[in-house]
């Protein structure tokens, strides 16, 4: 089963890369952008076929390695 996870900086953490991307997009003429936040995407292919168990495992991975919970939030966005 493949689990997809997105990790983003928490709302109150400054995201200088997101800011620069925002400015660049503005400069390119893309109008009306409120904010850009940069994040990370992981697709984890596990042997576990039970969706709940697979997601629980990935959640544990996020807490222990993939995300740093001081500054980042994680969200499982898909299982297939």
């Amino acid at each position, binding site marked *: 089963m493949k689990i997809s996870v997105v990790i983003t900086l928490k709302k109150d*953490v*400054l995201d*200088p890369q997101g800011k620069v991307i925002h400015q660049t997009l503005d400069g390119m003429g893309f109008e009306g952008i409120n904010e850009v936040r940069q994040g990370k995407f992981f697709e984890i292919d596990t042997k576990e076929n039970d969706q709940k168990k697979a997601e629980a495992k990935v959640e544990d991975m996020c807490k222990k*390695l993939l995300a*740093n919970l*001081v*500054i980042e939030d994680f969200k499982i966005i898909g299982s297939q």
Partner: protein
Amino acid sequence: MHSSVITFPGSNCDRDMDVALKKFGFKNKMVWHDDVELPKSDLVVLPGGFSYGDYLRCGSMASKSKIMKSVLNFAQGGGKVMGICNGFQILVESGLLPGVLLRNKYLEFICKNVFVKANNKDNSYFKDDKKDVYEFHIAHNEGNYFCSNEQIREINDNSQIALFYSDENGIVNEQSNPNGSLQNIAGIFNKQKNVLGMMPHPERMIDPALSGEDGSIFFENLINNLK
């Protein structure tokens, strides 16, 4: 005094640290990250560099390497552990120190000499040090110290800030903050003050022919305090 310097894949200040420690009287051993046991040590140093190519987050992979279990046990038993630059990043990722080191505020790799002010001398690292303000070298991309409001309250309540970025007179202000660090933090201790993490490199300041001698003062004092 026995010391150990851990080499991770991508460490590049490990030999400089070895030279510095030996120069001031430590019997130093280099320890590979894949080893399980630490040699007998009075001080363990996690050196600077780019362990695991800074993949995922700086220090995150190294903090899970085999030797780190022994380093965690050593630190939890009161052993002295010092992390410099990437070593500091590894210490926060391992949970031995609170907070995290973010990308520098202005997205630049900073490589220059800075002044840092010792904030707390009631510990083995800075006790009886002749100096309050040191000129050290920094070279990092992720040195912007950050932590939650709750954590910074606790850090201040327990006097855990080791070093502030300052000017040469020890004045801590925004102009002397090179990377956007919270409260100008350049280094912190754990609660017990046996674990120290700092971004500046004292090992690069041990010879007047190279850069300066403020690191010599730091290491001379350190070995005396550990005796």
